[in-house]
């Protein structure tokens, strides 16, 4: 979608070669020569096509927006940033392939890539071995801990701690969990249980749903039988928004609250009908509707380039923060050398992003940032109802200390 004109010209010559595969594809080598020698090569891999491009396109847009803004101010260290972007097509093996290619061929200095945890996990060993700082900007289940990996999205515990506190206060202590049946769901459910216990709540039951389910009647019946005060729902993928419709249609919204940490992160509030979406409470590090100078400036830039037909998602803001944090670190290090940049990134950097002030935690490589509690309205949008300022990624801070143990390469699970 957004590609460098020079890149296209070079590539066109290799059309035939590529089609024939191995032998002739060696012409790709010519690509890197198209760029000026002192440009800083910035690698990006997002899902521009396929099922995940709901997220991937916005991540890519935010990344380009940030890079353009930096280049407009003269680049970094007097050098222009040059984005080399690959489309991972929502296919996991492409991440491995393109990450290696960008590093080996294009000699990228930094990598911004990926939406899913599996994509991050696939690239984490590669950047570790090749020593390229890597930024992952999506909300996720938490726990990733690796020297070259930096995470600008919120982790599950970070969001859940404030959400459960708020919800128990608002609705009462009895909780039911509806979660997708994979890592994100099961780990998030664990955090619900943990915080519920801490705060005097009680989890009455939980149902884990495969991503291909379209019929939520059994879940809804079980919720009715359990009679909770509120339901924690973590719909993943477009299909699971059907749960919200069926939940509302069965008349359950009048009887109990419904809260989520990921509702809205893929613009689900646009998909669900006003009846189903109104009143759903969500908690994330960014919503387009939050107030603040940083967000206004960000939205203005975004609107000028892409328009605002589709609400900006939290992953976009996280990507913007990622690029800017890296840029600050490069300026501070005065070099793009890996050791120096990592050292700068681990120096407690702060940045005033669209979602307020964020702090890059030196030990855990996660962000301390605001978490917003919002409530769905009838216009496919949200109203902000509470801001928790500077929420620390406590689980990651506790488990992960990359300054003391730089060799750690783990995805911690609670």
């Amino acid at each position, binding site marked *: 979608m957004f590609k460098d004109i020079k890149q296209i010209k070079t590539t066109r010559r290799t059309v035939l070669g590529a089609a024939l595969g191995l032998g002739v594809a060696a012409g790709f080598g010519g690509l890197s020569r198209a760029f000026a020698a002192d440009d800083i090569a910035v690698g990006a891999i997002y899902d521009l096509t396929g099922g995940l491009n709901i997220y991937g396109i916005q991540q890519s847009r935010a990344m380009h927006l940030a890079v353009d803004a930096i280049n407009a101010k003269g680049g970094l260290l007097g050098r222009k940033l040059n984005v080399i972007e690959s489309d991972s097509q929502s296919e996991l093996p492409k991440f491995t392939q393109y990450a290696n290619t960008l590093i080996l061929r294009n000699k990228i200095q930094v990598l911004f890539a990926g939406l899913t945890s599996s994509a991050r996990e696939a690239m984490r060993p590669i950047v570790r071995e090749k020593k390229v700082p890597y930024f992952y900007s999506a909300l996720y289940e938490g726990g990733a801990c690796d020297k070259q990996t930096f995470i600008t999205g919120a982790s599950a515990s970070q969001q859940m701690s404030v959400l459960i506190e708020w919800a128990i206060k608002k609705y009462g202590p009895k909780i039911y969990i509806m979660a997708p049946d994979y890592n994100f769901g099961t780990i998030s459910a664990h955090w619900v249980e943990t915080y519920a216990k801490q705060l005097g709540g009680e989890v009455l039951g939980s149902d884990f749903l495969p991503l291909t389910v379209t019929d939520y009647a059994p879940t809804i019946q079980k919720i009715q039988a359990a009679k909770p005060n509120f339901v924690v729902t973590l719909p993943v993928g*477009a299909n699971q928004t059907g749960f919200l419709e069926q939940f509302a249609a069965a008349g359950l919204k009048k009887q109990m609250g419904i809260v989520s940490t990921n509702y809205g992160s893929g613009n689900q509030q646009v998909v669900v009908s006003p009846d189903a979406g109104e009143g759903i409470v969500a908690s994330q590090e960014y919503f387009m509707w939050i107030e603040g100078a940083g967000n206004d400036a960000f939205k203005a830039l975004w609107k000028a380039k892409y328009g605002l037909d589709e609400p900006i998602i939290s992953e976009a803001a996280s990507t913007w923060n990622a690029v800017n944090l890296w840029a600050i670190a490069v300026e501070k290090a005065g070099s793009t050398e890996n050791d120096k940049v990592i050292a700068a990134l681990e120096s407690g950097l702060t940045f005033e992003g669209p979602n307020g002030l964020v702090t890059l935690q030196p030990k855990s490589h996660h962000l301390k940032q605001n978490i917003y509690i919002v409530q769905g309205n009838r216009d496919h949008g949200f109203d902000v109802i509470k801001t928790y300022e500077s929420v620390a990624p406590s689980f990651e801070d506790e488990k992960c200390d990359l300054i003391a143990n730089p060799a750690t390469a783990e995805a911690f699970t609670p």
Partner: protein
Amino acid sequence: MEIDYLLVVLLSSLTSASVLIIATLGLAVIFGLMGVVNLAHGEFIMFGAYTALVVTRSGVPFSIAVIVAALVTALFGAIVERVIIRRLYGRLLDTLLATWGLSLVLYQSAVLIFGSVTPGIGMPQSNVRIGDYTISSYMLFLLGVAIVLVLALYWLLTKTGYGIVARAAIQDSETASAIGIESGRINTMTFALGSGLAGFAGAILLPAVPATPGMGFAFVIKAFLTVVVAGPVTLTGTVLAGGLLGSAANIVASFWTTVAGNIVFFMLTMGLLRLYPNGITARWNRKL
């Protein structure tokens, strides 16, 4: 276990089966009458859902939008049959691959045209109370839709000229062509009928399952299995297989977990296929 819970589970298992049957009939008709498996079936459902969505949002009542969606998808199916399927008769596996290619194209086109998120239309906020439980009226309505749909299809295939000819054509294609039945035209109509049913399914389920480019995928696995388990006797087989598998999965999910419900669905399928490799109706005499 309270009696009201049992009643609700019974009702919802019937609605689950109805949803499965509604989503499967189009595939079953094409498979039963033409011997072709349309791997793009899920995307045809999606096609119908988007058509209904667009029509509804232009101000047309939903009930009419559903009809429009079915017709538009049928027309699209007719074109697909003329342009692609027709050239592949007798090349069963190639047809599979071509329709799979079509599913990719439809999916990506939907992403391009509608973007990844489009507002849904929502379900009617009315429900029926049974003891301590409520069940959405629209889901109950779908149960009625499934029954009417099956009866209408039965009428279409037994009482109309097209139906009689189409069934004659599967029973003996040589004789059919000998007595001057133009099998090409019949096939176009059958494929259009199957596509129309898929479009109808997408449209009628739209309130409960929002339109997204990938929505078809959620239906196809179970729809394929239902058709294969059903075997050659299109209508009865689909109703039986869909009813059995759909409600069994629902009941297990209601008393245990949704994952268990899914596992039961797949295990039952495997078991049935081992017992009846060519479908439960493979040895039946009736043809519908």
